[in-house]
């Protein structure tokens, strides 16, 4: 982020992830909020960015293999793994 007293949309978009991760300091956050209040296009862009992240996370369980709906493990895979272990 540049050291000006206001952000452009380019500056704003550049730091969206840092904003969402809580990594902006107080001065950066104030500039971010001021631009957000003044720029509906960036407000909408931020919303769509958030939605994109949420959509990505929604396609599977974020906890990985602790997911609530595991695939059945194919029997051929079980047997292949156990056979490979025996051959070690």
């Amino acid at each position, binding site marked *: 982020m540049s050291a000006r007293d206001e952000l*452009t*949309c*380019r*500056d704003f*978009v550049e730091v*969206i*992830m840092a904003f969402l991760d809580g990594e902006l300091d107080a001065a950066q956050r104030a500039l971010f909020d001021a631009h957000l209040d003044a720029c509906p*296009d*960036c407000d*909408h*862009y931020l*919303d*769509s*960015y*958030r*939605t*994109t*992240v*949420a*959509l*990505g*996370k*929604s*396609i*599977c369980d*974020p*906890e*990985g*293999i*602790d*997911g609530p709906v*595991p*695939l*059945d*493990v*194919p029997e051929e*895979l*079980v047997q*292949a*793994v*156990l056979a*490979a*272990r025996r051959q*070690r």
Partner: protein
Amino acid sequence: MAEDEAKLVAALQAGDDAAFERLVRDYGGRMLAVASRLVGDGGEAKDVVQEAFLSAFRAIDRFEGTARLSTWLHRITVNAALMRLRSRRRHPEEPLDPWLPQFEASGHLANPGEPWQPQGALEKAELRAQVRKRIDELPEIYRTVLMLRDIEGLENEEVAGLLGVNVGTVKTRLHRARMALRSLLDPHVREIQS
């Protein structure tokens, strides 16, 4: 560590055949889901799971229970999948720039378009189906970071370690990947909203 899990780990460390079979049956399906997300469905994902189990069997003596068994197996599966992705022949990477936001000379967003309706968008099954397809369109280095961070839930530091890059690079790639994915999803969101 839960009592059942501690017993299973002790049996695995003792070389109990039945315990190994139980491990494969209990966790294999979930590991296959993780592998399929990373390398795609089909035979390669099964190969990844097999490689991951063999790695786990070799390392089980060093498992100390500081993480849950499921978390430990998840990391091993991710690592096996990344090894598989690295071994694929590299195709020339498509540039990401066309999918990044464009700006006017003044720094203002060019072509900002209509706003999304976030809640409505999330509830549409057809849009969620598109998400998977559009993620697969991302260049590999961006797709991998997005998958590991946003979908597999790894921390920046873990992703950096697995990919052999620094945390700053992970953050930059993730932000660019998310912006590109947003652009790829934009026409589908508009179609659903119209």
